[in-house]
């Protein structure tokens, strides 16, 4: 059990408790789970980023009575001190080590799976994929699962479309409140944070070009405007472009915006959003950052191949590319997710919503899995509402409740007034 040194346990505890301060929703669920024990007798295998926030989720699920086995969803994100405290202080089976090689990483997942899960928690469809290919023997015992990311949900929907998926899975990522918290507020804040930390640029009076006006783009654009920047939005989707225009942002094709911007942020989920034809017209010292999932939105490869010179790390996370003609472009975090690389990613408050959603979906699956056909399920509305309510409680915000007459009025088609 465990793969990290016990000596790291104290440090891990500090980190775990620090995160706990900002995770009030999870704390409330934990209290209830301790009383109601909704997960008693269930074995849960989770493949998640082994961080302090995840550790708090594990403790909540254990409070609910689950038998837990945790493996890393990515060896680079594992916090070894968190592994240590979970293993040595709380006695939870954690298969993870920071920087593990591919074979070790596989072995960790295999060991966790071998315990024979009733429920699986996935972040990128790793566990579900293995169960449906190499571990068919374990499938009959599995009652359901939860998926954390967009990428994983895409794969699950593909499996479901081919009728290959053999148990119900909840797409936790798609919950309304999760989208709003994680993307709009989490990515919005942490992206601006990352640009400030890495460059210390004054945004007021500058032109910030935001590529993509989805939830992430809206969050970034609002915050940049809030700091006094003049914001230009680029879009491919007419609905979102119209949303941006109606919010008072200038909307331009990137070819036009490229010459205007002082700071560029890509949050499209697409590729090649900033490329040669844009680099060609950018101002000297333009700052380029990406907060989309993959590092393909800024064509850094082209810059590497065609620049006159490159000065890596002129500040932490800032590479300077010298172009023919003398202009310089500043690329942050090599074009990878700037909010994770140059800041701290989602704040714990965002993960609180995410993981409170996981905990409630696990509870829901434990109660309902027997009645659900295989397939991908949206987060039930009552859980979404419940998540919002938990956050409101934690923030001390009070709201109104419909009385019975109002409820009847809103639900009856006969009632005209």
């Amino acid at each position, binding site marked *: 059990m465990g793969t990290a040194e016990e000596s790291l346990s104290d440090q891990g505890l500090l980190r775990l408790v620090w995160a706990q301060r900002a995770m009030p929703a999870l704390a409330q669920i934990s209290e209830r789970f301790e009383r109601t024990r909704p997960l008693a007798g269930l074995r849960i295998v989770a493949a998640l980023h082994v961080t302090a926030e995840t550790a708090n989720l594990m403790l909540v699920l254990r409070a609910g009575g689950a038998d837990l086995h945790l493996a890393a969803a990515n060896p680079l994100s594992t916090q070894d001190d968190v592994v240590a405290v979970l293993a040595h202080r709380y006695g939870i089976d954690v298969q993870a080590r920071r920087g593990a090689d591919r074979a070790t990483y596989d072995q960790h997942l295999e060991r966790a799976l071998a315990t024979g899960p009733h429920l699986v928690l996935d972040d990128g469809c790793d566990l579900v994929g293995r169960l449906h290919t190499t571990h068919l023997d374990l499938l009959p015992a599995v009652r359901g699962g939860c998926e954390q990311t967009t990428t994983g949900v895409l794969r699950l929907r593909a499996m479901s479309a081919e009728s290959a998926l053999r148990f119900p899975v909840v797409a936790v990522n798609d919950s309304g409140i999760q989208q709003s918290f994680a993307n709009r507020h989490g990515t919005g804040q942490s992206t601006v944070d990352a640009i400030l930390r890495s460059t210390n640029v004054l945004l*007021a*009076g500058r032109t910030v070009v935001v590529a993509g006006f989805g939830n992430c783009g809206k969050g970034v654009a609002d915050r940049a*405007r809030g700091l*006094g*920047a*003049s*914001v230009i939005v680029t879009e491919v989707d007419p609905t979102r472009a*119209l949303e941006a*225009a*109606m*919010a*008072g*942002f*200038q909307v331009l094709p990137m070819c036009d915006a490229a010459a205007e911007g002082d700071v560029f942020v890509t949050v499209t989920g697409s590729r090649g959003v900033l490329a040669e034809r844009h680099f060609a017209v950018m101002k000297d010292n333009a700052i380029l950052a990406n907060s989309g999932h993959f590092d393909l939105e800024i064509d850094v490869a082209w810059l590497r191949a065609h620049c006159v010179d490159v000065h890596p790390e002129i500040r932490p996370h800032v590479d300077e590319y010298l172009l023919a003609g003398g202009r310089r472009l500043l690329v942050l975090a090599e074009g990878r997710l700037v909010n994770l690389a140059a800041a701290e990613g989602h704040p714990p408050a965002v993960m609180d919503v995410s993981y409170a959603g996981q905990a409630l979906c696990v509870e829901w699956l434990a109660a309902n899995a027997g009645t659900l056909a295989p397939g991908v399920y949206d987060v039930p509305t009552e859980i979404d509402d419940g998540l919002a309510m938990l956050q409101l409680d934690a923030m001390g915000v009070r709201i109104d409740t419909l009385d019975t007459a109002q409820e009847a009025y809103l639900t009856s088609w006969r009632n005209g007034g």
Partner: protein
Amino acid sequence: MTQPIGTDYKVADVSLAAFGRKEIQLAEHEMPGLMSIREEYADAQPLSGARITGSLHMTVQTAVLIETLTSLGAEVRWASCNIFSTQDHAAAAVAVGPEGTPENPSGVPVFAWKGETLPEYWWCTRQALLWPEADGGHTGPNMILDDGGDATMLVHRGASYEKAGVVPNPDTADSEEFEVFLTLLTESLAEDSQRWTNIAAGIKGVTEETTTGVLRLYELAKTGDLLFPAINVNDSVTKSKFDNLYGCRHSLIDGINRATDVMIGGKVAVVFGYGDVGKGCAESLRGQGARVIVTEIDPICALQAAMEGYQVSTLEDVVETADIFITSTGNKDIIMAADMARMKQGAIVGNIGHFDNEIDIAGLPRGGAERIKVKPQVDEWVFPDGHSIIVLSEGRLLNLGNATGHPSFVMSNSFSNQTIAQIELFTKNDEYKKQVYVLSKQLDEKVARMHLDALGVKLTTLTKEQAAYIGVDVAGPYKSDHYRY
């Protein structure tokens, strides 16, 4: 009133008085500054003996100002300072007075109606300045309350032409309005060669409401031509940083909406000038979801706009692409007819600066454009190529022309300053020379203080130690004179 007023007033329709009175009562509730001044000075009657001529938009809020002045003992005659800004029901209610009836009016002589011609406008200003006497002659006011400086200008130019013994030929005027103005003074000179000289001699001072009027006053003071002391009310913090900013923020989009009902969100709006008025305009347009572009000539204001995240550009760059154009410069010739001809179909053009010379309306027909009246104060101008634009209030203050101007609460701040300035100049006249003054910081703070309760604002009080630490008195003033707020 000491004198029978009989027909000594001219409004659009005196039967509107009852409606006007109801609106005045509503406004009184929203004007806590003026109401508390009435209470404070009820016994002292500091304006007893004052004969005040007012030239200021004849709105419901102004009615509360006028009745505040009379409740402090003043006699008042009034004209509007804009041909479109009068609210006819307010004018009727003021003429009738709180105690009078339309059949038997007992209010203040007011000469104002919405939609005056230029000759009518200047006739009204003149009527407000000429105080009838029992013998059929007239005297003048001993105080002026001005907005834009038209009443003050009439007295000054009148006196100056009388001294010269001749009025410039109206045909040489550079604008239609100036031609009307010179015609009036030509006639006046023929009637009485000392009229304005005598009136000027009796005037103890003027309190001026707005930026444009203040500019004129400083020019007169600079050349030594100012005939009586002036208080610049505009530059009280509780005026320019409130009325100009928050008032315009409120009434600009109100005017645009009432005139056109156009969706502002998603449009590109250009605000010319980023002073206090421009700042309010830009904020309200952005607040409705417009993308706002600012033009400026002053590098400080331009930089302020840029730091607020507005694009700063030139008319030349945006004239063909923007949807809404608002001038707020206080200068002239901002948007010329040739510029308007280049605007896109349906572009909306309006002015919120004091005078109508920011937009070259006169140039439109000269350039062959044709005017189609859509409704009062909304004109479509069709260019020879067939495309058209919308012009609001003929280029005059659109917030007053198309909506009802600033809301009462904001005007309570401005008019409290006006009233206090009138009291200052009238009661301490010896202390003022023929210069332009601003109200003391104490009085400015007093005006602000009078408005806090209504908003539920709880003020913190300095301890003696804290006051000493920053070198102020516990009771204020709290800032040095050069503090910029």
